[in-house]
């Protein structure tokens, strides 16, 4: 019997900590063992430099995070600014995730309900993900700034959320479609025949059978969508230059990296935290839906 989420969580925490420690040890070991100039073969650098500019010590990063953001007298500490930025990024990513999940589910329902829609839409759904994000981000920002929807005043962060949702909808559309149609594929299952015998229509079958049966497929898709939304938000913050989020901080701090190399690692760590928080929320969602997770996984 499967109770994956309940047991994976406590068991996953020590494993996760061990992973972080291993990564930290690998970072410092690499820095200690390899020459400052990395490893150059001919004119090509195979392995990166290990100077304090390229790879600051972990403790320098931590120490830098505790110091003020700038030399200004009233500057807040870097870690606080990072958290503030992480909060902003997480908020935008959440809006992007919700939008992406909504659109993804609607597309999946459409494709599950109408076979022609599936044939017509699915290639476009896949194609949509081959468009480079960097290319569309400025376009979305420009379109957005010209939008006037009633009293809604289009903000730049909404463009960023739209870009995040563009990445988030894809796994949801594909995963939900697979989930909604899973009763069709289970050749030994009698559920569809039963619902037909009950003489109920497509929508009743959808709500009572296809939706609950889709949960084991939907949860991984939602988790993937959360990670995508965070990546999409950070990248879109960079390419649209949105202030307040981690993406802008990474770019700004990176510009002054030669003078203050440890500084940019704070927002990078912040981005990892945002990713953890986003997937954590989905894990909680999964814990709430545990009774729907037998079926497929138990087999």
């Amino acid at each position, binding site marked *: *019997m499967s109770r994956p989420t309940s047991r994976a969580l406590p068991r996953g925490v020590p494993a996760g900590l061990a992973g972080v420690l291993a990564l930290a040890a690998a970072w410092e070991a690499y820095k200690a063992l390899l020459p400052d100039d990395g490893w150059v073969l001919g004119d090509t650098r195979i392995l990166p430099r290990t100077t304090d500019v390229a790879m600051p010590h972990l403790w320098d990063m931590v120490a830098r995070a505790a110091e003020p953001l700038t030399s200004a007298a009233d500057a807040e500490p870097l870690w606080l600014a990072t958290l503030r930025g992480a909060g902003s990024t997480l908020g935008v990513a959440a809006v992007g995730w919700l939008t992406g999940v909504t659109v993804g589910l609607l597309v999946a329902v459409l494709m599950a309900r109408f076979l022609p829609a599936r044939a017509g839409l699915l290639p476009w759904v896949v194609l949509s993900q081959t468009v480079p994000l960097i290319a569309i981000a400025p376009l979305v920002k420009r379109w957005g700034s010209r939008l006037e929807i009633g009293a809604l005043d289009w903000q730049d962060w909404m463009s960023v959320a739209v870009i995040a949702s563009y990445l988030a909808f894809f796994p949801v559309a594909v995963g939900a479609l697979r989930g909604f149609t899973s009763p069709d594929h289970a050749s*030994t*299952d*009698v*559920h569809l*025949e*039963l*619902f*037909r*015998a*009950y*003489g*109920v229509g497509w929508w*009743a079958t959808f709500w*009572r*059978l296809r939706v*609950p049966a889709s*949960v084991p497929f939907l949860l991984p898709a939602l988790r993937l969508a959360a990670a995508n939304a965070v990546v999409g938000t950070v990248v879109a913050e960079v390419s649209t230059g949105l202030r307040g989020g981690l993406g802008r901080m990474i770019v700004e701090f990176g510009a002054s990296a030669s003078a203050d190399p440890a500084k940019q690692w704070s927002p990078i760590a912040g981005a990892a935290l945002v990713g953890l928080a986003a997937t954590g929320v989905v894990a909680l969602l999964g814990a709430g839906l545990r*009774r*729907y997770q*037998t*079926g497929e996984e*138990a087999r």
Partner: protein
Amino acid sequence: MSAVVATGVGRVFGPAGGAGGTVALSDVDLTVAAGELVSLIGPSGCGKSTLLRLVADLDTPTSGSLTVFGKTPARARADQDYGIAFQQAGLLPWRSVQANVELPLQLHGASRAERAARAAELLALVGLTDFAGHRPDQLSGGMQQRVAIARALARWPRLLLMDEPFGALDEMTRERLQDELLKIRAETGAAVVFVTHSIPEAVYLSDRVVVMTPRPGRVVADLEIALGSPAERAARGIALREDPAFFERVSTVREALHAGEAGLPARDRGAAGAPDRAGR
């Protein structure tokens, strides 16, 4: 009114018109009276499950006519005149036992209170009152099948269609569920069409056993069993299973099956030593 009347029913899979298609059923005549328990028995491929699916309107005949309580099968399905159970219990794993039994009631808009009352009644009937809150994966195969039967009975059907419902169970569980089915049958008075490939099971449960053979699927014998009413049979239990009259019926069905396999003419209707059914 008869529960099921099939006249010259055929089902050909494949190209329309039959040329090159696979004949699953050919020219089947079958009448199931209200309240009667009829078993369809035969080897794999004889079309017994196909016939059941035609009655359930899960499939459509390619020839002949079929009525269920005087209506088309599609009408009967829409009116929920039958309940159905398959070899797999097919319970929804995310629902409790009680919620599974309530499913057909919920789909047809019964109130929460009505549903709970009916589910309690049915779970008592199949002896699973204490398991109402359990999840299907916590139940044994036999218990799951009892839940499936309770679910099939939820909307007071006058006809119960059962496709090898005990086929995946061990012998002991199987015999216990057969007794329960007879009891349920006596209490509900529903007609039952029961597909099986077990001869003793067919004889024990049925008022009539319809013997079918494959290539093409057709009826070769229609045997009256006449071992007493369902209530009497359920009361006799093991004694009946060891009764010489029981063995005699088993032999008759077996001979009909083998004669059908060999393509020999089967013995006449009512050949199991029961009164002739001509007056029906």
